[in-house]
């Protein structure tokens, strides 16, 4: 993975820059510059790529973030914003001549307003603890990435994160009402607030998903929703991916809006069974569909789903009657990544495809798996076509990682070919940066980069991400 070359002048100026940064933060331990300590920040959850930053700064307020950015702006120091460092795409991968600006100490709840159905938090707060703050009052925050115990709202906003429940409730951008954000030159702006829709241009919609390249979000106003009365899953097994795919389509068309439709293929089912013993049926494809409401409403929806499933001759049909059975149905799905990890190292992709292309894409992935000589399991959010192929490889075997990367790139190209995209919820980061030309024309990328020019003319924020390096070279050199 190529990154922009560090500027030796900046590295030489490290002592002065660190001293200036120390002057504007209140806590003594807010600036970390010892190499044995900056190592803790050398990567995010995409651990294949590592690079210790010049320094790490952990401010305690929006004003401190502003002061830090002002200095970096003056000194020409690149800034990589970081939430909790759970990015699977290398979104928080440091650069050697820049700082990591972590928001982990900005973690307070600032306002809970159930009458107006919002919560205002600092952006370093973890996703799950947002729901935790409003749970007793009967509310929840809907986007639920699988890293929700650890991941920060700041990162959710940067990557426009999704989760298993977004089929019904949408992703981050659909649940974000406002942000307080600091621009690279230190200017503090507020976009949106505790009301719906933008008055002018929808800058909030632009900022969400911009991978920390337009500004550093320090506060967020998030929509909260009343908790449903209950939820229960049903498990269905089919003897081909095609049939399972057709069943998904029929469920959606019938007007049922499940909160989740999860899909696992045979390699994944077998791995999961061996590891978690969830009692899954021996079949080619498995669906878990979860619906919400009162008991009677759940029964009404599950009955309809069963009727639809029976038309597709399921080899198994198991409905959860209580919380215990529900937990057992989910046990395997939740253990799927871990189970695959027991077999080998794996690489997880998240390209999205039109639901109708599911059977074709799964068949092609199977063929490619043979061509590359690498096993792959598929577990994904089927309702919205968001795939998660897990490519197994052996990190200790020379050449295996490279082969897995090449296989992954082919899968993502296939996703784009059938009308989909490179990434549905993880973000581009460094991982998919060099594939952007597969999905976008030069003019498309130019339009995106012109937006960065407006927010960050010197291209200091999270450099070397999202866009291919050769495409951004002139701008970074300017």
């Amino acid at each position, binding site marked *: 993975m190529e990154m922009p070359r560090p500027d030796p002048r900046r590295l030489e100026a490290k002592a002065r820059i660190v001293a200036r940064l120390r002057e504007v933060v209140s806590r003594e331990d807010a600036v970390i510059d010892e190499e044995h300590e900056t190592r803790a920040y050398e990567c995010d959850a995409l651990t294949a790529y590592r690079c210790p930053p010049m320094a790490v700064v952990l401010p305690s307020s929006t004003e401190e973030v502003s002061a830090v950015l002002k200095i970096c702006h003056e000194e020409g120091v690149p800034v990589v914003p970081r939430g909790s460092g759970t990015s699977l795409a290398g979104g928080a991968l440091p650069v050697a001549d820049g700082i990591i600006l972590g928001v982990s100490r900005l973690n307070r709840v600032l306002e809970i307003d159930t009458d107006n159905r919002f919560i205002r938090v600092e952006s370093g707060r973890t996703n799950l603890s947002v729901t935790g703050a409003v749970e007793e009052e009967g509310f929840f925050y809907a986007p639920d990435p699988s890293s929700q115990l650890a991941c920060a709202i700041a990162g959710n906003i940067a990557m426009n994160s999704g989760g298993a429940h977004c089929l019904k409730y949408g992703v981050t951008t659909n649940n974000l009402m406002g942000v307080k954000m600091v621009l690279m030159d230190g200017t503090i702006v507020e976009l949106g607030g505790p009301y719906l829709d933008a008055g002018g241009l929808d800058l909030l919609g632009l900022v969400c998903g911009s991978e920390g390249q337009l500004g550093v979000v320090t506060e967020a106003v998030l929509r909260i929703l009343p908790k449903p009365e209950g939820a229960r899953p049903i498990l269905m097994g089919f003897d081909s991916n095609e049939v399972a795919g057709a069943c998904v389509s029929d469920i959606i068309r019938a007007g049922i*809006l499940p909160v989740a439709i999860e899909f696992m293929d045979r390699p994944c089912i077998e791995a999961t069974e061996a590891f978690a013993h969830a009692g899954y049926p021996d079949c080619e494809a498995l669906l878990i569909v979860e619906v919400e409401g009162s008991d009677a409403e759940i029964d009404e929806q599950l009955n309809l789903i069963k009727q639809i499933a029976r038309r597709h001759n399921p080899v198994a049909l198991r409905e959860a009657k209580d919380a215990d059975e529900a937990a057992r149905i989910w046990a395997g799905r939740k253990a799927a990544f871990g189970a695959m990890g027991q077999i080998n190292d794996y690489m997880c992709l998240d390209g999205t495809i039109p639901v109708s292309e599911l059977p074709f894409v799964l068949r092609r992935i199977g063929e490619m798996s043979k061509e590359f000589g690498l096993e792959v399991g598929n577990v994904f959010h089927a309702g919205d076509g968001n795939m998660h192929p897990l490519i197994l490889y052996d990190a200790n075997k020379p050449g295996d990682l490279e082969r897995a990367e090449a296989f992954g790139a082919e899968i993502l190209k296939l996703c784009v070919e059938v009308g989909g995209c490179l990434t549905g919820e993880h973000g581009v980061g460094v991982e998919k940066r060099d594939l952007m030309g597969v999905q976008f024309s030069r003019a498309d990328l130019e339009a995106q980069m012109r937006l960065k020019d407006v927010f960050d003319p010197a291209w200091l924020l999270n450099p070397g991400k999202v866009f291919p390096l050769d495409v951004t070279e002139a701008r970074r050199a300017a």
Partner: protein
Amino acid sequence: MQREVTASKALCPASEAELAEAIASAEGPLRILGGGTRAYGRPVEGRPLTTAALTGITLYEPGALTLVVRAGTPLADVEAALAEHGQRLPFEPMDMRGLLGTEGAPTIGGVAAANVSGPRRVQVGACRDYMLGVRLIDGRGEIIKSGGRVMKNVTGYDLVKLMAGSHGTLGVLTEISFKVLPEPEARAVLLVEGLDDATAQRAMTAALNSPFEVSGAAHAPRGVDGAPVTMIRIEGFAGSVRYRTERLKEILSRFGEVAVETDPERTAAGWRWVRDVEAFHDRPGDVWRLSLKPSEAPEVAARAEPEGALYDWGGGRLWLLMPEGTDLRARLGPFSGHATLIRASEPTRRAIASFPPQPAPVAALEAGIRRQFDPRGILNPGLMG
């Protein structure tokens, strides 16, 4: 070939390439039109350019809930195509013709460019939340795409949201992909009469804060028969609607006597009345649309001293009928939200900003974006202020 409508000298390109060429070779400002039914904002001087000839549904997959449609396609055609498969645009776009006294056929591109959402926005989200992808021509005449036609897509910056509600000032949409949803099997509306605004707002909050999935919460201080009426809508499978009706009835009975209406025609007409702000159609005066913190709506409405008011989105959207030429923002002072002037005479729309003025740093970002997308300042110049 490019057709020129001689009477108005309107440009009416018949393809995306022609549209790109028309913009690239434009020698002066252009007034971008879909059906021309949403005539608000600062009046624009310029040669009309309409997307009316860019029509047709290019892809519709009911099983994937996906629709791709050219921008000039009449909204009615889109809705009819969806209805054939029992589906709909979930965000319930308003028809503005009655309120603005405009004629013509609203287009899907106009809906997207103005980010038009109706009462169901409170539950399911806005037009922009259902836009999966766009194709557009920017002010340089370049063809640009963003997003796609899949439900989840975080590949690159989200220009789709930026284009939604940009009123043709950053680019001219040529094609839009939408997520659509099935029509529900049943619908019920709970009605409470005679509530004052503050009580009605609390009643709507009680309904919206329940787990019973309210898809509309509106209050008219003067309903069709002159009396105040508060309306709560639920939709879904028949059994579920019956159940939730009963539960919501219990909640709302704390505020007043609750009537239930389930007749499909009558409930549809009632929500059309809210959606299109029919209460103001035949009444003179300016119309303002506010987006605000719901609980503040009654107090803000009182401060405005309007000639008419309509609460939607549980109070999160407030329609106000004001005497002609009133500078509502000056009258209200600061509040948590923003106000847009939707209907007023041209002189008023030149004198008072239609779109809410932004704080300086945000205004600077907006100006910067406009310079990048429309360096010559030819796309609906000045429309948004």
